[in-house]
């Protein structure tokens, strides 16, 4: 009797809240998953503690190697920083030039538009390392005296600017096209020309909107400065690699990795913050 009543009550409560009935298997699954995950983690820890933990530590996190390689890595990383700061400044301008060419109005501007589209297609499609290789080793061979005298650093800047200019042009384009046409109509109806409308009304609004995706591309650019090592520039990765090769230990590379993460994380947080702030503002307007 008692059992029966209890069963009935259970059935009733289940019926009363169908969500809970659905939730129960999900919760059971989640518990099993969590338990399995913990078990795996414990087993892995045990295994590493018995066998490889020290090897791993000695290969990647050897303190004396981290310490000894750091002056050289730091010197190299400083070059990475210079590379991306200069490249980012150029990319901001170059991307805008490209997108304005891409969106140039009228029949007469068609060749300009095609050129911009071709540029964007090519440099977004090429692997970064291929572009860097072609720019860094190809241009000096062309016999153009300007390129013969150029320092290696500037080939790196040029390659990164070409690569990221294409991405950033597309980011700008998304921003410009997101500005409602009625804004342009209002500006044109005041008598502003197309270029004045872009300059005073459309681009300022577009740039504000694309700051988060722009910062995202800049994070990519910062990391890709390490690819410049193929040109033989003694930037962070090259120096870390040389140390690693000489000492048969990868701690120097880990040290460089830490440097990159340390400068990237604040950038990521800043992007997150800006995106959130934008969303809040949009909600406030709506």
């Amino acid at each position, binding site marked *: 009797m008692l059992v029966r009543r209890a069963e009935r009550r259970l059935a009733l409560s289940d019926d009363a809240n169908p969500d809970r009935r659905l939730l129960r298997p999900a919760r059971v699954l989640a518990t099993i998953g969590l338990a399995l995950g913990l078990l795996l983690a414990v087993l892995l820890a045990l295994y590493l503690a018995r066998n490889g933990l020290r090897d791993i530590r000695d290969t990647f996190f050897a303190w004396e190697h981290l310490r000894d390689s750091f002056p050289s890595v730091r010197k190299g990383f400083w070059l990475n920083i210079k590379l991306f700061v200069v490249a980012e400044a150029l990319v901001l301008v170059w991307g805008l030039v490209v997108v304005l060419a891409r969106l140039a109005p009228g029949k007469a501007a068609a060749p300009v538009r095609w050129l911009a589209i071709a540029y964007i297609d090519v440099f977004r499609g090429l692997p970064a390392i291929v572009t860097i290789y072609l720019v860094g080793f190809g241009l000096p061979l062309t016999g153009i005296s300007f390129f013969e005298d150029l320092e290696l650093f500037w080939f790196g800047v040029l390659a990164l600017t070409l690569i990221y200019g294409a991405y950033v042009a597309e980011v700008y384009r998304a921003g410009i096209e997101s500005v409602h046409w*009625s*804004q342009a*109509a*209002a*500006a*044109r*109806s*005041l*008598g*502003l*020309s*197309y270029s*004045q409308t872009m300059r*005073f*009304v459309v681009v*300022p*609004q577009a740039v*504000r909107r694309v700051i988060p995706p722009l910062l995202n591309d800049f994070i990519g650019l910062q990391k890709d400065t390490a690819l410049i090592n193929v040109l033989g520039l003694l930037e962070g990765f090259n120096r870390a690699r040389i140390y690693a090769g000489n000492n048969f230990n990868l701690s120097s590379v880990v040290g460089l990795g830490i440097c990159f993460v340390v400068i990237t994380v604040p950038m990521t947080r800043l992007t997150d913050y800006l995106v959130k702030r934008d969303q809040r503002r949009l909600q406030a*307007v709506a």
Partner: protein
Amino acid sequence: MAFLEISAVEKRFGKNLVLQGVDLNVDEHEVVCVIGASGSGKSTLLRCINGLEAVDAGTITVDNRPVLQDDFALNRLRREVGIVFQNFNLFPHMTVLRNVALGPREVLGLPRAEARERATRLLDRIGLADKAGEYPDRLSGGQQQRVAIARALAMQPKLMLLDEITSALDPELVAEVLEIVRELATEGMTMLLATHEMSFARDIATEVCFLDEGSILEQGPPEQIFTEPANPRTAAFLKRIIAAGRL
């Protein structure tokens, strides 16, 4: 010759013939109200006069100059023709003052100080001098629309086109905007209004046209249109408006 002359204007969007042979003249200091249901082509007509849309047939002349789709002619036209939109379309990234000063500064080439002074005077006139430093999203709809009117006036236009400028406003904010339009009318500004505010139209219009499915069915002084419309479709439209309590 009338200041604004519209003759046999046609405009199509795809297969849809939005304006089918519109004729309309507006003399200087006249206030002409275009009434008609939504989708009857009122906005399109105003946008064609300003050159924001190109006509497919017919001609429009403003101050004896035809409205052509070339940039030079259009920019000159737009200095003389101000337009105010239903949705204000203020520039959200500029302060109220800069919104108003932008045209004088960049289009008319006034020195910065002079442009700002003109903007300040206009803001003072619409009673929003204290909002000069604010951004548009801090203003109410009615205030934003008043700023939009000031922005158009800052170009010192000879003709103002008002495109349902109170349709997006909360009812209690309509009066403050219409008050400014009324002032403009008494000062003798030539105006062409597309509007749903029938009592206002009746009040300030020198001439009312009823636009229906892209052509003007009836035109005349407000008293005649509103009290004894000749066309049965005008009568039916007004009946619906009266039933909705808008007249």
